[in-house]
């Protein structure tokens, strides 16, 4: 009896008291390090009155940070959606020198601390940097502008787009394309009708995961951006600024908005994956 986790018969308390210790450790840990902090945020938000919440949440500076954060994250994840598809395609279907190296380096944004990423990106894309120097004559400034925020978000979210598409592409039957080809389909028809549809759930999942990561990103963006309100100030930086001014209510409201967006993105990811399983399972 002591070894079976929640089964049907005895009462809830009995189950809790007699649950195996791995269960108790799991729940204790989740409660202490996850539920308690989350509850702190929700409870704090609930102590504010609705009019106050609305005023803080729709403050012009706050609105502009949502715009910068969500719009830039969306653009970054869509760019990554296209680039990720091409990268995954090239890594799965072609042989070329340096392929293994490229495959391994895709995960760099997961391994490289974001402060380092922000630092090196801001140097390279600054107006006298290695790449920024080329763009300067065309009047394109990257570091300390919204474009810089975009570059940092592309960097941070890139692996998601590649790594979600790659395994699906690997499992795809090349025979299907051969069949489409031999039946007279053009390259474009083969791509649109045969290759793309089964990849779509994976591509969208990658875009949604990248978006979610980019929305929450702080480290690399704060270093490459100028953090100027109404220009390139993102919501996570605004939270920190509010905290530095001891404006806990302000930080809480913006934090809650960010949390709700993240949870919605998570829900969308799960829905896409569930649909994907149903149609292409």
């Amino acid at each position, binding site marked *: 009896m002591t070894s079976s986790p929640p089964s049907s018969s005895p009462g809830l308390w009995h189950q809790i008291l007699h649950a195996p210790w791995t269960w108790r450790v799991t729940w204790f840990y989740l409660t202490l*390090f996850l539920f308690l902090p989350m509850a702190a945020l929700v409870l704090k938000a609930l102590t504010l009155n609705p009019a106050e919440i609305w005023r803080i949440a729709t403050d012009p500076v706050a609105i502009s940070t949502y715009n910068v954060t969500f719009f830039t994250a969306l653009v970054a994840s869509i760019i990554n959606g296209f680039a990720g598809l091409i990268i995954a395609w090239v890594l799965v279907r*072609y042989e070329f020198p340096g392929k293994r190296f490229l495959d391994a380096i895709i995960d760099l944004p997961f391994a*490289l601390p974001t*402060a380092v990423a922000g630092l090196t990106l801001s140097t390279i894309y600054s107006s006298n940097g290695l790449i920024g120097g080329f763009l300067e004559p065309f009047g394109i400034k990257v570091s300390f502008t919204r474009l810089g925020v975009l570059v940092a978000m592309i960097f941070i979210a890139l692996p998601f787009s590649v790594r979600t598409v790659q395994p699906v592409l690997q499992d795809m039957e090349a025979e299907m394309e051969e069949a489409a080809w031999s039946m007279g389909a053009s390259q474009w028809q083969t791509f649109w009708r045969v290759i793309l549809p089964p990849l779509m759930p994976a591509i969208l999942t990658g875009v949604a995961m990248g978006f979610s990561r980019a929305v929450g990103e702080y480290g690399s963006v704060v270093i490459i951006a100028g953090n100027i309100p109404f220009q390139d100030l993102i919501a996570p930086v605004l939270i920190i600024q509010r*905290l530095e001014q001891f404006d806990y209510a302000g930080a809480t409201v913006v*934090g809650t908005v960010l949390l709700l967006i993240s949870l919605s993105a998570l829900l969308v990811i799960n829905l896409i994956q569930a649909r994907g399983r149903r149609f292409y399972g």
Partner: protein
Amino acid sequence: MADSSLRQPIAVAGSRSRKAGKFQWGKWLLVAFVFGFLGLILLVPALNVFIQAFKAGLPGLLDTFTSKFFLNAAKLTLITAVITVPLNTVFGLCAALSLANKNFPGRSLLISIIDLPFSISPVVAGLMLVLLFGNRGWFGPLLEASGIKIIFALPGIVMASIFITMPFIAREVLPALEENGTQQEEAAATLGATQWQTFWRVTLPSIKWSLLYGLILTNARAMGEFGAVTVVSGNIVGKTQTLPLFIEEAHIQYNSQAAYTASLLLACLAVVTLVLKYLLERRAGIQHRGH
């Protein structure tokens, strides 16, 4: 991985049988695009860390490496990882063992809950801890009365790191456990092994590669965490400043040599992480996926 090595020759042979000239042209165009894109976004920035760090030669590096604030930051980063990684390992193993090969209502919900920290902005995670343990937080008065400091101190930094890296190990070990099934454990139990013996001699050896993979990812993220730590640490130089915070501070003060020297250390950590990750993926056939 094994799967891909079987398929690639087929795919390549297939592509060769098509209108060779035109298709090859398309192939190299795409390969060039990939090199260009990854070059601009990943390769050049990564190489730049090494170039900038070695700009002033060895003396420049040594200057930072021997500075007191750098050493303190490196020490704090190390201490944080040394506490965070084992705690999350125990949690990850317990969670995976509780979930694997079992079926109960709410199981997939629990898995989503364990994955939750990956979807929460690190800054929001830090904010939660401040609202809980900060001066004006829920437990603030209680902590102040008993003289315990969590925010602007090591416990806060550790809790933030734990929050951010919580899911890694469970999510690597769980699939491995599911794949292995329970037959071996049942056999061991039938032969009279205790639960501990079964765990150490049967379960652990069968999941060691996945566990190691999770450990590497946990460690890399714990050492490099910036957003959550910024909020809870207070960034007190020499006291609660970790390496990522040291980098930001040096950068703001236009001390780019110090910033890049600290970055070099963390970039080396990233390279080691990538190499180990790559080896584990090849040796143990672990599938890489998004984190």
